[in-house]
C-alpha cells in the first residue's frame, strides 16, 4: 500500500515539475502531456533502479538514456524538436541537493565535504549528459555517422 501511494505521489509530483518547466520553455501545448509523461517515466525508472541497489550514476545514466530514446517518438509524431523532450525529461534528475551542498560546505570552509558533494553532483550531471548523448547517437544518424 505504501509502495503504491509513494509511486502515485512521486508520479504526480514529477509530472508537475516537468510540465511547469515545459511551460517556462514555451513548449507547444500539444507537447505538454508527452513532456510530463517522459519526465515521470525517467524519474520512476531512476528511483526504482536505485531501489534495486544500482549506484546513483548508473541509475541516472539509464534513466537519461530512456528519456532520450522515448523522446524520439513524440518528436517524430508531432514534428517537434527532439531536444524539447530531452530537456524537460531530465529535469527531475538535476542534482539540486549535492550542488547546494557544495555551496554550503565551501562557504563554511569545509573543503572535504564540499568536494565530495561536488564530485557527486558532477557524476550525476555527467551521467545525464552521457545518457542523453547515447540516446541521440542511437536515434539520429546525423550523430551516429561522421559526414560532411
Amino acid at each position, binding site marked *: 500500500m505504501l509502495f503504491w501511494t509513494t509511486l502515485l505521489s512521486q508520479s504526480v509530483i514529477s509530472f508537475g515539475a516537468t510540465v511547469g518547466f515545459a511551460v517556462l520553455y514555451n513548449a507547444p501545448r500539444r507537447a505538454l502531456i508527452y513532456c510530463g509523461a517522459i519526465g515521470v517515466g525517467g524519474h520512476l525508472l531512476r528511483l526504482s533502479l536505485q531501489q534495486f541497489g544500482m549506484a546513483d550514476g548508473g541509475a541516472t545514466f539509464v534513466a537519461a538514456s530512456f528519456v532520450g530514446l522515448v523522446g524520439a517518438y513524440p518528436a517524430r509524431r508531432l514534428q517537434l524538436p527532439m531536444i524539447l523532450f530531452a530537456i524537460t525529461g531530465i529535469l527531475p534528475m*538535476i542534482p539540486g541537493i549535492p550542488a547546494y551542498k557544495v555551496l554550503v560546505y565551501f562557504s563554511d570552509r569545509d573543503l572535504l565535504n564540499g568536494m565530495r558533494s561536488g564530485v557527486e553532483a558532477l557524476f550525476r550531471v555527467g551521467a545525464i549528459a552521457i545518457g542523453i548523448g547515447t540516446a541521440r547517437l542511437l536515434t539520429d544518424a546525423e550523430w551516429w555517422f561522421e559526414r560532411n
Partner: protein
Amino acid sequence: MGATEFTSEPQPSFAIAAECDLAEIMQVVLRVGVLMLQAGTVSFRVEQAMQRIAVGLGADRLDAYVTLTGITASVHRSRQHYTQIVRVVGLGVDMNRLAAVEFLSMHLPENSTPHQVMVLLDKIEKIPPVYPLHLVLVAVAISCGAFALLQGGGWIEFAAAAVGAGGGQATRIYLRSLKLNPIPTTVVCSAIAILICFSLVQTFDRFGYDTLNAQYGYLSSVLFLVPGAPLITAALDLIRFDLVSGLSRIAYVLILIFSLAAGILTAGVFVNFSIL
C-alpha cells in the same frame, strides 16, 4: 579560343546578378540561424536548417560554422560564393519558435523566393508566447514547489519554494524586459527568491510550523534559474565535435550557475547566513 572568351561578354553582369541573389539568400539563411540559436537549440540543428533553406532557395550548398555567440556561413552556387558573419545575442529557450522555424525549414514552399521566406519568418517572430505571463509564473511556482517535494521536503517547503520561485520569476520577467545582462539578472533573481523563501519559512516557524528540511525549500526556490537547456545542448554539441559551441555552452552554464550561487550568498549576507 580567345574569340570564344570574348563572345561570352555578358557573363560579368550575370555574375553580379547571381551574387546579389546569393546575398539575399544569405540574409534569409542567417536570420533562420539566429532565430534558432536564440531559441536554444543544438548547433548542428541550426546548421542543418540553414542548409535546407539555402538549398531550397536555389544555392548549391552552404557551409555554416555555428557557435553560441555568432554564426559564420558561406553559401555557394556554381562558382559564386558569399560569406557573412552575424553576432547572436539574447540567448534563451523558446521551444515554440524553434519548432516553427525548424518546421518551416523542412517544409519550404516550392519555388519560394528569399523575400517570401522573410515574410514567413516575420510571421514566426510575431507569434505571441503560447502561455500568458501569469500562467508561466504559476507554472514555475508549482514546478519549483514540486521539486522541493521531490528532494524530500514537506508542504512547508513546497509553499516556501513555490512563492519564492514565483517572486524570482516575476523579477526575471521584469529584468528581461529591460534587456539586462543575464548575470546580474540571475544574481538578483536568486537573491530575491531565497529571501522570499527564507521569510516564509520564518513566518511558518513563528506560527509553530517549524521544519528541519528548510534547505530543500531554499534550493528548490532557485531551481528555475538553473540553465538546464544549455547543459543538454552542450553535451549534444560536444558529442558531434562541435567543440567551440559545446565548450562555450559549458562556459555559459558555469557562469550562470556561479551567478546563482553569488545570489544565494548575497541573500545569505542579509539574513546572516542562517540559510546555509
